[in-house]
């Protein structure tokens, strides 16, 4: 429903009705509310001003070697969801996932604002078990679910429906070469970038190139973001800002 710019076409009542209908449609989309990413320009692109709770979000690395960066961005988003509500984060691990870059390390998770004590790790022998565990977790009790396995369209629809039902967000780490369709509400692509430096020239926080490839009801965009380990939040970053001039450093 579009409100015509010509005021003669719209009677007062139709305008109100149209607006109400639009409002309901927007409200229905996020009945559980949203969580802000902490960056205004990104939130502005997402419907409702943030990542929808009760929805499936997918994060893919730009290439194989960006898997740790994509995991980091995923955890940064998940930690926002955990901040908002109490409860437990369910994280199924399948053996084939361990091959790439190893298992999550609790002491490293802490610097992403996650309390490792609130993570329930579910060791699954097969991807099928992991999918079942994630769906169960979505239906009962979990605050957020992290999955590490690309799934087919049917499975992702099931996740999306279960998430809608309970209001629990689910974050999936897709493979970089997996272009199959999915029912995700947002899809992100993350690439590694050189870290920011502090004023002594030391590594300050990881920096990523984040692209919003798909957002249902939102706008797409690309940003360079950095994770601040001290403030435990995401920030926009520019490629050149705060970078010590190499010429001056050697001098």
């Amino acid at each position, binding site marked *: 429903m579009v409100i015509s710019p010509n005021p003669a076409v719209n009677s007062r009542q139709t305008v109100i009705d149209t607006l109400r209908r639009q409002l309901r449609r927007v409200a229905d989309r996020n009945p559980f509310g949203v969580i802000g990413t902490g960056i205004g320009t990104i939130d502005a692109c997402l419907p409702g001003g943030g990542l929808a709770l009760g929805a499936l979000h997918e994060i893919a690395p730009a290439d194989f*070697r960006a898997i740790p960066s994509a995991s980091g961005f995923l*955890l940064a988003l998940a930690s926002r969801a955990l901040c908002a509500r109490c409860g437990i984060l369910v994280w199924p691990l399948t053996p084939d996932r361990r091959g790439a870059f190893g298992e*999550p390390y609790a002491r*490293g998770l802490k610097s992403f604002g996650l309390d490792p004590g609130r993570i329930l*790790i579910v060791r699954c022998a097969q991807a099928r078990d992991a999918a079942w565990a994630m769906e169960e977790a979505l239906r009962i009790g979990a605050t957020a679910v992290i999955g590490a396995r690309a799934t087919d369209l049917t499975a992702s629809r099931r996740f999306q429906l279960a998430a809608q039902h309970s209001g629990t967000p689910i974050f999936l780490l897709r493979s970089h070469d997996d272009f199959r369709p999915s029912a995700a509400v947002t899809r992100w692509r993350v690439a590694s970038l050189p*870290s920011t430096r502090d004023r002594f020239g030391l*590594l300050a926080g990881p920096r990523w190139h984040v692209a919003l490839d798909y957002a249902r009801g939102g706008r797409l965009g690309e940003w360079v973001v950095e*994770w601040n380990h001290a403030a435990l939040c995401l920030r926009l970053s520019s490629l050149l800002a705060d970078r010590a001039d190499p010429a001056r450093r050697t001098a």
Partner: protein
Amino acid sequence: MVVAASVSGGWRVLAADARAKALGVVPGELLADVRARVGALDIREADPGADREALTKLAHWAACFSPTIAPWKQETDATEYGLTLDIEGCAHLFGGEDGMVRRLRERLQHFGLTARIAIAGTIGAAHALARFGAQKIAIVPSGEEERALAPLPVSALRIANIQIASLHRLGLKRIGDVAHLPRAPLAQRFGAGFVERLDQALGRMAEPFSPLLPPAAYRAHAVLAEPICSQDHILVLARRLADELTPALLRDGKGARALRLTLYRVDGATKEISLQMAAANRDAAHIVNLFSLRLDALAEEYDAGFGFEAARLDVMAWDALPPAQEALVAERQSDNFSLLVDRLGSRLGLQNLVRLKPEDTHIPERAVVFAPARDAPDWSDVECPSRPLLMLPAAEPAEVTALLPEGPPRQFRWRGVHYAVAHAEGPERLRPEWWRRQARPRTRDYYTVEDEAGHRFWLYREMLAGDDVHSRWYVHGVFA
């Protein structure tokens, strides 16, 4: 058919079936004699291990008559086996003692077993009557053990052969002959063990009884008129049993932590399904739900055969669970959590649900351990220096070029890929804990390294104490 075994003096017949007995075979004869007399005989070697196993299996099956059960074996005679059941409070389920005995006999006949059954007030009396009684079925009313036992031979008393022989020498052949003799001279002559057995049989002395299955404080039991096969029917039955348990648990303010559902198959096999729960619970619907998941997980092993004819639900472990007020608005979070752990655990196994627990050590691979899901580890006070997000299961060797022997890496090759180091920070030197004995302690110098494309790694150089030349490099983790 006869069963033979090699005993003192050669091969002897241990047991013979009815047709062999009709041909004149007597247990205890030498096998060679029997062979000479009777032509065609099916002779099998005795296998005491298999006998014992079969008896245990039968005992598990017979637990559908009474949960307090123990198999016994006569030491003096290798062919005598039996089961002792404590049927206190169980007989009414089968319409009294008569009905119970009839059903038990019927079922055993169905398996092809010939059984002699006796019910008496003491274990000793039931034992003696079952083995030496005139009838195949004997039910002795309480208090009449002495009269029932009097005509039986003394060998019915579960005593050693040598004691039987010396009693016979003195003309004491029946239990009635010794029942009234003064105990002190009897004990002096035949040993305290004999008097004990005698008094135990007569009910003048208590007899300990160690049942095969550990007793459960809460249990529910159902015997079905018709066997059931389908999973749905089993769940309906489980629901009925769980409903039966709930009031008792509620009354005592208890909740079940571990449950066991035993299903009795028509052919005598038993199937046990055990359940562990994260938190005490007495909600029948929840319990049945978990059993349903367990049955799903067992899909391949699940074999109903010709159906199940009885079932029992035991509470194996329990915890205090005070009666809670029904919540008006929302469920509490912790309840949700234990519900989740139960559901996931019943299909995937509780051991596969773990939480991360900090360990007080600076060795990176030992600093985090897996704890059971039930524990809630506290991370609030744990100081975490800069650590990678992902750790390799085991450190992987890397070829590293450094400008100085003790300097930071300038470039390295890992998994066949070459990385040019743009920035390196370190070293963070970690030494092995001195209280752990090591012949040659290895020191690690950790570097946080970033390559030109922005990939961040955690490398370390391993050095033997006092040996700077032979150092090796490893990649241990990856930063986000």
